[in-house]
């Protein structure tokens, strides 16, 4: 029986790998997800066949409670709230691994097992509380700014030393349960301390990293309970999260260490003198310009998600296409609050994915664009990243919308972006500001096209 279970795990590992491979293209991605879920089903059924299981009632209870919550959440979550949901799920995964690591503790455990138990508790615990803080920041339940205080480094160092000391003592004296509690408590505390100094705009990096940790925690739990499939699946998730983290950091031209520790956006930013003046435009005038345009680029940011403007954007896009214009979307890798956030919102509004261009694809075309429409994006289109060497975001790759003939910036007010950096784009000769709620402004343009 045991050997059959192990073979079933091999099959499910193969299905996970094949499923992830299929996730590499939008055309096959849905099938890939199905394949991956089949792998999961096989793994769970196989695990239930284990002869060590004599009592199914708690397992069933867990399945029912967890499954019901998961299904309800998946059904009800709004696409704009995906970052929050993914953050929460990362946390649940981490907590599950912490509990499994803890429960794996037995008097007969070897030192190797004890070390892996500590690792699953540490990674799982910090993933849990870190994700809860990330969730709080994303949903604005708590302030989304970076929290820095005097002596933060010292406090964090003490926590890390405490974890290390507690971990060593636990491995030496596994029967002394207070060392275990110390490690659990400090790991949970460390997750909080690690995420509070990170500002809202850096959340794409944090979510990716916590995603990776939730996988690594599963991996450590796999070592603790001696289970191959946990190690394989956990490390696949771990690798995936690390790659996304890298992509996000690269898109901001910052190192991971800078994102995690610098408290970006919390300090005062020196204001650079920007020359030029703000030129507002009315919806009506904007319509006349758009009506004459043959090539339009739309660059969305987090503001589009906040305003829930994706559906009316799609409407405007269709009207402009009927008017003979070519319309493309330029998506910056860190636009929004998680990797791919804008793509999902636009997919929800039925924008075909081949109309969504990545930054490197849209930038060479920018000179031929008649009108670039910026919807709730700021830092990712800031030309200061190219031109102003003293700017904190200097060197970050941005979408060069200022090279388009005309730029419309849809914005509520003149407040600066999350990074708190002045944006010279707003003062350029070819820029017009369309102030107001993005959804209403675009709705206004749609009505103008209709008449």
């Amino acid at each position, binding site marked *: 029986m045991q050997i059959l279970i192990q073979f079933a795990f091999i099959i499910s590992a193969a299905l996970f790998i094949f499923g*992830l491979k299929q996730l590499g293209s939008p055309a096959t991605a849905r099938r890939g997800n199905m394949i991956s879920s089949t792998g999961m089903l096989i793994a769970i059924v196989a695990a239930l066949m284990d002869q060590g299981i004599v009592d199914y009632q708690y397992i069933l209870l867990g399945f029912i409670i967890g499954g019901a919550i998961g299904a309800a959440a998946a059904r009800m979550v709004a696409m704009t709230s995906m970052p929050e949901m993914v953050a929460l799920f990362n946390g649940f995964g981490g907590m599950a691994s912490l509990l499994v690591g803890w429960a794996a503790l037995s008097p007969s455990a070897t030192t190797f097992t004890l070390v892996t138990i500590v690792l699953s508790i540490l990674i799982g615990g910090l993933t849990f509380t870190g994700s809860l803080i990330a969730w709080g920041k994303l949903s604005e339940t708590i302030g989304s700014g970076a929290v820095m205080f005097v002596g933060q480094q010292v406090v964090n160092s003490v926590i890390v030393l405490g974890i290390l000391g507690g971990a060593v003592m636990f491995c030496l004296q596994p029967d002394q349960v207070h060392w275990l509690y110390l490690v659990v408590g400090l790991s949970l505390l460390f997750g909080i301390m690690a995420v509070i100094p990170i500002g809202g705009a850096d959340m794409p990096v944090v979510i990716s990293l916590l*995603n990776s940790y939730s996988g690594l925690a599963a991996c450590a739990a796999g070592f603790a309970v001696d289970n191959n499939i946990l190690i394989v699946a956990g490390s696949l*998730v771990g690798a995936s999260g690390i790659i996304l983290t890298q992509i996000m950091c690269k898109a901001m031209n910052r190192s991971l260490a800078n994102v995690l520790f610098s408290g970006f956006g919390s300090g005062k930013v020196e204001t650079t003198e920007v020359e030029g003046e703000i030129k507002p435009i009315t919806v009506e005038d904007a319509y006349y310009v758009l009506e004459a345009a043959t090539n339009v680029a739309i660059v969305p940011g987090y503001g589009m998600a906040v305003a829930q403007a994706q559906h009316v954007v799609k409407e405007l896009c269709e009207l402009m296409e009927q008017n003979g214009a070519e319309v493309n979307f330029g998506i910056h890798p860190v636009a929004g609050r998680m990797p791919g956030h804008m793509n999902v919102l636009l997919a929800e509004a039925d924008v075909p994915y081949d109309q969504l261009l990545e930054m490197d694809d849209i930038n060479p075309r920018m000179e031929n664009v008649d009108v670039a429409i910026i919807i709730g994006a700021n830092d990712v289109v800031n030309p200061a990243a190219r031109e102003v060497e003293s700017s904190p975001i200097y060197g970050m790759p941005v979408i060069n919308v200022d090279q388009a003939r005309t730029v419309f910036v849809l914005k509520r007010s003149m407040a600066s972006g999350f990074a708190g950096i002045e944006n010279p784009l707003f003062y350029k000769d070819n820029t017009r500001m369309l102030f107001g709620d993005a959804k209403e402004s675009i709705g206004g343009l749609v009505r103008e096209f209709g008449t």
Partner: protein
Amino acid sequence: MIPAEVFLTFILMLSIFLGFELINKVPATLHTPLMSGANAISGITVVGAVGLAGTGQQDLANWLGAAAVALASINVVGGYLVTDRMLAMFKKKEN
């Protein structure tokens, strides 16, 4: 006889490299579904948890295992369903 720890670490090393190769090819458009799909896969902890929740011992480990089953099930069920919901929305341009 090679000790089990070495085997497991070997598996870990290979899976991490495999993971890097697989995920590197995923386009930016699919990064959100990739994350929620990865979330679902990290619910694999449920496989380890059922063994602990089903011992019938009524001890602490049993309760911890049962709680882990519930938490990991949220990930598995919620993760796969929401990923499917998102991917169903991705459409190619009709000509």
